């Protein structure tokens, strides 16, 4: 779990507390919304998370 927190800090520049909250959300609910914004930036984040061995996917806002 520390690994996931560390990856969120590295990829998204989150502070430790925010990264922990997202990690716990993933742990308890299976996923967490980590970024909302332009598709190109979101794709880059997905690529980085995949490189860190964490699965991630894009969803279009309704």
């Amino acid at each position: 779990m520390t690994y996931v927190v560390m990856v969120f800090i590295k990829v998204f520049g989150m502070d430790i507390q925010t990264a922990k909250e997202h990690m716990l959300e993933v742990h308890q609910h299976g996923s967490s919304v980590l970024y909302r914004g332009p598709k190109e930036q979101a794709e880059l984040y997905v690529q980085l998370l995949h490189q860190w061995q964490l699965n991630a996917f894009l969803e279009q806002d309704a």
Partner: protein
Amino acid sequence: MPNINLELSRDIVSALTKLIESISIMFKHNLAFDAIVPTDDPDLAVAWKQDLMEQLQLDCDYLIAILIQQDIGKNNNIVSLDDHGIEVTLRVASAIRLKLRTVFFSELTDEELEDAMLNPANIPPHLDKPFTCYQFLAGLQETLIRAIEPNIEI
């Protein structure tokens, strides 16, 4: 950030390098997890996964080179990792642990695996080596993360 120096047990490294090499070969054909690729274009999806596999192969080669150096007793069993080396080691340790989980521990629930981390005696004998490898890589990750992000405490 200054380099991190690790002293790895030669006995452990010697026992686990072959297993890690065999996992590395699996990564020539499959990723450690079923990546959800953000495109409907099948060609782009293949290219995306190919890029990930190539990077994973490089990461594996890096870790295996370190382990082989330790196995032959180079540098008094001390490995020095710079920022890049730390990131590569963390990533590839995660990938190998995921693959070990899939290949060897698929019959265990997450809770059973967590319990086994605390009570390794519960692991069946035929899974001793993969489990030792899983634990070794988990310990390596924890050590590196504590060094680079000392305030992370779960």
